[in-house]
C-alpha cells in the first residue's frame, strides 16, 4: 500500500487501535486534518483550547488504561498543550501528543508559528521524536506508543514538520508489528532474591502497613493487591493517586494518607515497623519531613522505575519490575509459606489502629445537616453524591479543597474511577478529563467535582460537551473563593486573603451552562441539597451543571503540620493539633 505522510500518520494511529483523537487544527497540521477527514475508524474531538485536548486525552487514558492521543498545530497550539503534558508526566499517564511543526527548511528561521516544541516540552515528556522524513512515520509512531505505555508510562511528543505530511509524495506503508529499542529495556520480572527478602520481612513484621499508589493502578495490579491481602490481612492505605486500587469500604482500609490523609493512615505509617510501598514514590505530600518519616519502619519498595526508589526515603528491600508481576511472585512465595504467617502477631497493631480511627477518624455525620439555618458543608455534598451513585461513578476533580473533600468522602472501591491531577495539581483538569472518561464509558455516570475557581480554567469545554453530546455532571462546590489558598492564608498568614477572593465577580453559572445548551441547577440550602443532587443525577441525556453554595469558611482536615513536622503531626480542626 502506498500512502502520503499525512495518511501514514493517521493509518498508524488506526493500527494502534486509537478510537479518539483530541485536537485543534491550524496551519502546520492541516495536511493531517485532511487525512482525518477521509477516514472513519477514529473520531476526532474538537476541543475549545489545546489544554482541554490534553486533559481529555489524559482522562480517557486514566479511565481506560489505554494511551490518550492529542493533535495540535505548531506554535501556540503546541505551547497551549504544555500544561496538559506536564500533568500527564507527573502522574505517569500514557499519552501521545502529535504537534504540527513548520516545514523542515523553515526550522530555525523564526517562521510564522514556529516554536521549538521538542525543546519546550523536553523536561515534561518521557521521550520525544521529530519526524525527519515521512518514511519513518510508522516506525516512530510504533516506538512512541511502546515508550508511552511500557515501564513507567508517560507522555511522548511527536513533532511533525509540515513537509513530512505533504499529500503529494507517496511511500510504501507497512506498519511494524514488533518494536525493539536497544537503549530502552524497562524491568518486567522482579529479582527472585528480592522477592524472598520481601517475604521474609513481611512474615517477621508486627506493625505492617501496605502503602499503594498510582503505579499500582498504572500496572493494573489491583486484583493482585487484593489477593495478597486476602493472605495477609494487613492495614492498607492509598495515596491520592492510588484511591480505588484497594477497596475503600474494606475493613482493612485506612483511608488516604499524607497532607490531608486520615488520622489513622498517617499514624499507622508513622508507627509502622514495615511499610510495603507499591507503585508509590514517597512524594513530599506523603512523607512530610523525610528525616522524620516512619522512624522505625523497614521499607519494601516495589516499583518499575529505578529512579523512584531510594530517591527520598531509602528502601531496605527494592523490588524492581512491573508491580503486578512482583505482587504475583510475592503471593506465590507466601502461599508456600502460609504456615509461617502468624496472624495473631499483628492483633495488637490492628487494635491500636482501630483506636486511632475511633478517636479521630473522619466524622461523616458531623457535616450532614437538614436545616437551613446552617450553611451547606462541602463534605455533605460529596457524601450525597456517593450515596446517590452508590459509589459506582467515575469522579474527576480539579484542585483545591473540593478535591480533597472528594478524595476523603467518596469511597472508591474500584481503580480508575478516581481521576485527578495529583502530581502537578492542575486546576482546569476536571471538566476535560470528564469528557475523556465519558467518551470511553458512555453508559457510566461521570461526575466532575470542581470548584468555582478551577472550573473557570477550562470552562470553554462546555461547548465541546454540547457538540459531542457528553452528558456529564458537573458539581461546582462554590465557596466563592480560591478556598485552598485561603485556608493556607488563614493558617499561615494571619488570615490575610491576598488575591484569593473575587469580590462579586463570579458569573451566574446556571445561566452560563444554559447558554451552552446545558441544564443549570443552583443549590443554596441544606433542605434542597439531597433532592437537588438527586434530580441532577437522574437526568441521563443532558449535561447538568450544579452550582452548590457551601460554607466559605470551612477548612480541610486533617492537615499535616509543616514545615518540620512528621506524619504524626496533624491539625485535626481549626483549634486542635495532635
Amino acid at each position, binding site marked *: 500500500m502506498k500512502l502520503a505522510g499525512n495518511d501514514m500518520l493517521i493509518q498508524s494511529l488506526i493500527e494502534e487501535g486509537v478510537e479518539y483523537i483530541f485536537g485543534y487544527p491550524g496551519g502546520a497540521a492541516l495536511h493531517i486534518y485532511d487525512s482525518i477527514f477521509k477516514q472513519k475508524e477514529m473520531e476526532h474531538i474538537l476541543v475549545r483550547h489545546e489544554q482541554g485536548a490534553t486533559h481529555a486525552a489524559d482522562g480517557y487514558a486514566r479511565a481506560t488504561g489505554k494511551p490518550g492521543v492529542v493533535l495540535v498545530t505548531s506554535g501556540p497550539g503546541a505551547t497551549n498543550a504544555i500544561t496538559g503534558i506536564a500533568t500527564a508526566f507527573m502522574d505517569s499517564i500514557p499519552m501521545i501528543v502529535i504537534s504540527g511543526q513548520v516545514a523542515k527548511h523553515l526550522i530555525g528561521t523564526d517562521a510564522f508559528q514556529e516554536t521549538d516544541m521538542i525543546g519546550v516540552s523536553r523536561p515534561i515528556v*518521557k521521550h520525544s521524536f521529530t519526524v525527519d522524513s515521512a518514511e519513518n512515520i510508522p516506525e516512530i509512531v510504533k516506538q512512541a506508543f511502546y515508550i508511552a505505555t511500557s515501564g513507567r508510562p508517560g507522555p511522548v511528543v511527536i513533532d511533525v514538520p509540515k513537509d513530512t505530511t505533504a499529500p503529494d509524495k507517496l511511500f510504501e506503508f507497512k506498519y511494524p508489528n514488533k518494536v525493539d529499542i536497544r*537503549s530502552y529495556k524497562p524491568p518486567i520480572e522482579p529479582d527472585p532474591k528480592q522477592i524472598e527478602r520481601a517475604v521474609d520481612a513481611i512474615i517477621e513484621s508486627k506493625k505492617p502497613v501496605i502503602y499503594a499508589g498510582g503505579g499500582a493502578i498504572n500496572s493494573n495490579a489491583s486484583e493482585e493487591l487484593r489477593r495478597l491481602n486476602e493472605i495477609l490481612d494487613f492495614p492498607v492505605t492509598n495515596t491520592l493517586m492510588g484511591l480505588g486500587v484497594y477497596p475503600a469500604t474494606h475493613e482493612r482500609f485506612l483511608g488516604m494518607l499524607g497532607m490531608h490523609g486520615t488520622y489513622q493512615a498517617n499514624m499507622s505509617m508513622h508507627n509502622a515497623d514495615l511499610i510495603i510501598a507499591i507503585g508509590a514514590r514517597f512524594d513530599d505530600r506523603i512523607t512530610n519531613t523525610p528525616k522524620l518519616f516512619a522512624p522505625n519502619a523497614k521499607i519494601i519498595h516495589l516499583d518499575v522505575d529505578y529512579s523512584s526508589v531510594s530517591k527520598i526515603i531509602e528502601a531496605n528491600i527494592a523490588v524492581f519490575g512491573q508491580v503486578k508481576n512482583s505482587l504475583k511472585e510475592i503471593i506465590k512465595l507466601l502461599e508456600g509459606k502460609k504456615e509461617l504467617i502468624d496472624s495473631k502477631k499483628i492483633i495488637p497493631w490492628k487494635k491500636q489502629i482501630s483506636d486511632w480511627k475511633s478517636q479521630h477518624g473522619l466524622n461523616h455525620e458531623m457535616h450532614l445537616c437538614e436545616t437551613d439555618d446552617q450553611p451547606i458543608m462541602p463534605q455533605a455534598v460529596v457524601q450525597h453524591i456517593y450515596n446517590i451513585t452508590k459509589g459506582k461513578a467515575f469522579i474527576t476533580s480539579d484542585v483545591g479543597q473540593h478535591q480533597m473533600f472528594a478524595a476523603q468522602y467518596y469511597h472508591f472501591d474500584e481503580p480508575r474511577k478516581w481521576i485527578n491531577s495529583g502530581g502537578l495539581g492542575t486546576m482546569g483538569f476536571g471538566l476535560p478529563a470528564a469528557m475523556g472518561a465519558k467518551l470511553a464509558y458512555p453508559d457510566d455516570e461521570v461526575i466532575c467535582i470542581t470548584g468555582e475557581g478551577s472550573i473557570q480554567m477550562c470552562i470553554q469545554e462546555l461547548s465541546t460537551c454540547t457538540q459531542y453530546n457528553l452528558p456529564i455532571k458537573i458539581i461546582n462546590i462554590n465557596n466563592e473563593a480560591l478556598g485552598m489558598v485561603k485556608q493556607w492564608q488563614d493558617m499561615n498568614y494571619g488570615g490575610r486573603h491576598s488575591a484569593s477572593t473575587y469580590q462579586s465577580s463570579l458569573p451566574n453559572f446556571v445561566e452560563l451552562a444554559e447558554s451552552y445548551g446545558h441544564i443549570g441547577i443552583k443549590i443554596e440550602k441544606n433542605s434542597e441539597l439531597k433532592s437537588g443532587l438527586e434530580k441532577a443525577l437522574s437526568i441521563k441525556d443532558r449535561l447538568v451543571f450544579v452550582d452548590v453554595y457551601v460554607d466559605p469558611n470551612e477548612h480541610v482536615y486533617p492537615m499535616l503540620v509543616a514545615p518540620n513536622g512528621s506524619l504524626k503531626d496533624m491539625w485535626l480542626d481549626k483549634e486542635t493539633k495532635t
Partner: protein
Amino acid sequence: MIQRKLSVILENKPGALVRVVGLFHQRGYNIESLHVDPVEDLNEYRFVEEKLNINLKEGEVSHLIIATTVNDNLLRQILRQINKLIDVLMAEEIK
C-alpha cells in the same frame, strides 16, 4: 564531597546529548566539565556490546564524560535518572 566523573554511552542522534545535559539542570545538579565524542574505535567499547548484548557500528553512539561534585546517594540518583533516558545505553561512574 569529591568530584566524580560519569561515563555515558548514548545514541548519536540529534537531541540525545541535550537530554542528558538538560537533566542536570532540571534536577538541580551542576556540570563542572563535559566532553563528548562519537565512538569511532569500537575496540574499547566491547564491554558495552557484551553488557547489552548488541553490536555497535562506527559513529553510531557517542561517549560523554561529565564531571560533577556530589555525594554517593545523589550520584546513584543521577546515574539512575540518566540511565532512564530513552537514548542512553549505559551510564556509570568512572572509578
